[in-house]
Every structure is written in structure tokens, then in C-alpha cells.
């Protein structure tokens, strides 16, 4: 099923990009417009995706996604985005690491907490103190 969905999504995205590209300028013979390349690319993807859909049944590949890893790492990054400018780099680092850590199944948190604390201090030392990244360690 996933193989059909992937080709289907590609086909839809390319179709939408193609329609959007129709609104760009076409230009003339010597001065080709900004629409030509996007039209050619999205049209090519759409065509190849249709052939991919037709032949999807014969494809190889895993049909399963590691949803736990995907959700944990994705959520960790989202939390980093939400907190780095509001709470500071060190809280964002600790929260991101803690959430991403949930992506695997081992529950040994003690050594992880110690490691994360040392790592957060290292991040502060390298990026804020060393390289002058314009973000606060704590607070927005």
C-alpha cells in the first residue's frame, strides 16, 4: 500500500507544482520565461510517477515505517524550534534530547540524564561562548 501512496503523493505534488507553474511567465523563443523549467520538471515527475503507480505492485522495499523513531525525533526537533528562542539554547537542547531519546526502547535514563547535562554544557561552550551564536543560554 505504501508504495502506491508514495507514488501517488509524488504525482499530486508534481501536478500541483505544474498547475502553479502555469501562472509564471512563458517568455519568448530567445528569452525563455520562468515557467519553462518548473513545468518541465513537474511534468516529468508527474509522468514518471504515473508509470511508477502502474508498476508499483512489482516494487521492492519496506512497507513499514519506524513510527516511534519518526515521532520522537520529529517531536524533538519541533520542541527545539518552539523553545530555542523562548527558553534558551540549554533548555531547548535538553528537551530536544529527552524527547528524541524516547525513539528507542531502552529505558536507562540515569546515564542519559548525566550525558545530556554534560552535552548541554558543551553546546553552550562551543556555540555560545566559542562561536558567538546569537541566542541566550537561558530565557528568550
Amino acid at each position, binding site marked *: 500500500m*505504501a508504495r502506491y501512496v*508514495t507514488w501517488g503523493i509524488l504525482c499530486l505534488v508534481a501536478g500541483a*507544482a505544474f498547475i*502553479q*507553474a502555469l501562472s*509564471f*511567465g512563458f*517568455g519568448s*523563443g*530567445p*528569452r*525563455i*520565461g*520562468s*515557467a519553462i523549467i*518548473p513545468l518541465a*520538471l*513537474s511534468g*516529468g*515527475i508527474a509522468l*514518471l*510517477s504515473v*508509470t*511508477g503507480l502502474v508498476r508499483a505492485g512489482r*516494487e521492492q*522495499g519496506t512497507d513499514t*515505517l*519506524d513510527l516511534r*523513531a*519518526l515521532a*520522537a*525525533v*520529529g517531536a*524533538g*526537533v519541533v520542541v*527545539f*524550534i518552539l523553545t*530555542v*528562542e523562548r527558553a534558551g*539554547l540549554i533548555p*531547548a*537542547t535538553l528537551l*530536544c*534530547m529527552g524527547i*528524541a*531519546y524516547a*525513539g*528507542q526502547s*531502552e529505558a*536507562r535514563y540515569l*546515564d*542519559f540524564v548525566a*550525558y*545530556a547535562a554534560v*552535552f548541554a554544557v558543551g*553546546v553552550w561552550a562551543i*556555540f555560545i561562548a566559542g*562561536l558567538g*551564536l*546569537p541566542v541566550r543560554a537561558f530565557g528568550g
Partner: protein
Amino acid sequence: MDNLILGLSTALLPANLLACFAGVLLGTAIGVIPGIGAMAAIALILPLTFSLDPTTGIVMLAGVYYGAEYGGSTASILLNLPGTPSNAITCLDGYPMAQQGRAGVALFITTVASFIGGSIGIVVLTLLTPLIVDVGLAFGPAEYFALILLCFVAVSGVGGADRRKNFVMILLGGLVSTVGIDIYDGTYRYTFGFHELIDGLSLVPVAMGLFGLSEIICSVRQSHERVKHKVTMRSMLPTRDDWRRMVWPILRGAGFGCFFGPLPGTGPSVAALSSYATERRISDRPEDFGTGRVEGIAGPEASNNAAVQTAFIPTLSLGIPGTPTMAIMIGALMIHGIVPGPMLIQSEPELFWGLVASFWIGNLLLLILNIPLIGVWVSLLNIPYRLLYPSIVVLICIGAYSISNAVFDVALMLLFGLLGYLLRSRGFALAPMLIGFVLMPMLEENLRRGMLMGRGDPVYFFSSPIAATILAIAALLVVAPIFGSVLRRRPRDEGSAKLPFNEDDA
């Protein structure tokens, strides 16, 4: 000679020397960790170079690249897990050597082979690049257009995925690269009202998402055994027989690396594979390969490091990257305000020759560092991955954030990370997408310039003999596999006859 002296005087500046040292050290450390390749290593380190002088920054990134290739063999030998794709072949004989208690010897041989292969690659790079620059100076839009098309066709054959998927990825990468304002007519393409997208998508979040974050998501559940083999300085010394058996494979491997490195779509992995296959074929005891043969690690390691150096030839002389890692290097050069191409050697001789000289210094540093520091790399391998990966996620986030100190780039990185993971899980290779992303703007620019110069007549692109030849080669590369598959299919259709090819060669 004057050029080399200029290069050495640039490379030996304290800042550049320090950057080279830091680059090879970080590259080796990242290369040692299984699963994180040279591309992710460069993408991770790239933001750290923003505040550096362009030459210093590029010297550091190049050090990361060949440092990662050096370091990649450590996990191959000690854990049977390749640090980088091109080191995968080293597992075949390196790990059996470790199981026989010869891990130290295997690590020593890979270090020496890498050094010699890298050094030969640098000589070829030094001699060949100025010659290709002379040819490149005569190139116009037609030649560049043809060359980029050839690159796309060659790259569509990488990664083991089917060509249709690779073509889709090239086109998708190209489509993503069209986001932003069109400099010719001011049209906003696919910006959807986001002012952050007006200047287009930056390479860093795209590369970090595709190769960094998606790789982490794939490998979160990976667990590897701890290194059981004790490696001491004394245990690293090869026997006289080992020395005798490694010399010719190293030289042949370097030859393969020098040949495949500059070719688009091949790179270190193909070079290493070809070297291993050749050593096995010419050996008087091919059946022993895979049981711990010195030739099985010496040849491939020399070849992948030679290829790493010679891959810089088309990148620096023509501005055309043959491999995805070189595409990131091109992006890095552009971020630092340097336009790679035939003019680079004339407009930035300090950078060009300084970079070449830094390759020598970096290779020497790796030789000096890798042998005494092997204990450090082994202890790095013993850090549980469950602790390592959350910290890598944070480093990726900080790297993306530091591009313009905005969370928008982190969000873009996440988007490409998720996209990369989904595509990867469905068997799509991500490397062609990056090549498409980097090269499509160049293709579009040369297409437009060519159409203008040809007064709207597409025949202009076939008018130059060089362009016509390159286009003919590209067409041949497209047609040959189709023709080949038809030929292979025919005997089956006519009564399932045996294939006319050795399937190992396919």
C-alpha cells in the same frame, strides 16, 4: 612549482593549519560512527565554518571529507559496520582479520593505504586540474548544458535504486531548487507568501534534513556490539609478508580511485568495489577473499581515498560536482562567496593552491593522528548509540539554526528530514535529489543563456563539437541500459535460456 609554494604558504598559515587539523579530526570522529557518512559530516560541520575566512572554511570542510573516509574503515574492521558507504567493502576482509586477532594490523594497513592512495590522488589532482581548467575556459553555455545533462544521466545510475526513481529524485531536487525569485524576470516561484523563501532554499537545511535527520530516524533502533578487540600500538605492526602483499594492491587501488573519482556518478564506492573485484580476480587464491586477506583491504582503502581527492578535479576546474558530497562542497563554496569553475584558479589562486596543499598536510596529519589515536576512536565506538543520536539531532538543529539565526531553517530541515525518511524507506536514493538541487539552477541558467545566444534556436546546443559529443555520450548512457535489458530479456522469452552475462557483473 610557484603555485605549490603559494599553496603551501597559504596552507601553513596558523589558521588554515588549525582548520585542517580540526577538519580531519572531526571528520575522522564522525566517520568512525557507523551510519553517518561524509555527506552528513560535511553538512553538520558546514555551519561552523560560516564565521571563518573562505579559504580556512573550505580547508576545514575538505579535511572533514577525507577524514570521514579515513575514519570510516575503523568501524568496518572492528564491528563489521561500515562508517561510510565506500568503506563497506573493507568489512569483507577487515572484520575477519579482527576476528583472527589482527585488528591492529588491519587498521594500520588501511591507514597506510589511505595515505598512499590519497597522496597519489593529490598528485593527479595537481597535474590534471590546470589542464582541465584550460579546456573549461573555452566552455560556453552549450558545453555546460551538455555536461550537466551528462552528470544527471550518470547520477541516475547510482545507489542501486532503479533509474526511474533516480530520475524522479533528480527532477524533484531540481523542482525544489526553483523555489524563490527568478533573477531574470522577477517572478516569485513557489514562495507561497513566505518572505524567507524569496532568496530560495539554502543548501544546508536541505542537505542536513535529507542526509542527517533522515539517517538518524533510520538508525535510532540500531544497536551494535561493543568492540571486543584490544588494539595496542604493538599489535598494529604488520609482518614482512603483509608489507609485501599490500604494495601492488595499494598502487592498483590508487589507479582505480584516480580514474573513478572525477567521473560523474561513480566516486569512492565504485572505485573501492572495482579495486576489490580486481584484486580478487587476479589473485591466485580468490577463494580466500572474505577470510581476512590483506589485499582485500589495502586496494579498496587506497582507491576510495584516491577517489576522494580526484573528485575535486571537476568540482574545482569546471564547477560540476560528480558526486553528492562534491555537490555539498560546491554549495559550501558558494555560501562562502566563491564561484567554482575555470576562473577559480585565476581569481582565487591562494584558495585553489592552498586547498591542494592542505590536502597533503591533511593526509599527513591523518597518518600521524590515526595510529596513536586509535584507542580514542575505539572508545568512541563504545559509546552506546542511544546516547549519541539525541546529541546528533541537537547538533543538526543548531547547525540549521545558525544559517540565518532563524527557526524557519530548522523547520525546513525537519521537512526535508521527514521527506528524506519517507522516500528512503520506499527505496528512493537521496543523492540524486541533492545533485538535482545543486545543478538544476546551473542548467537553467545555461539553457537561458544558450537560447539567447542561439536566438531561440535549440540547435545551438548541438552546434559545438564538444557539446554534441557530450550529448551523444549522455544519449548513449540512456539508451544502452534499455538496449541491454531488451537483449537480456530476449533469451528468457525464447525459452528461458541462460543469461549471456555473468550475473555478478550486473
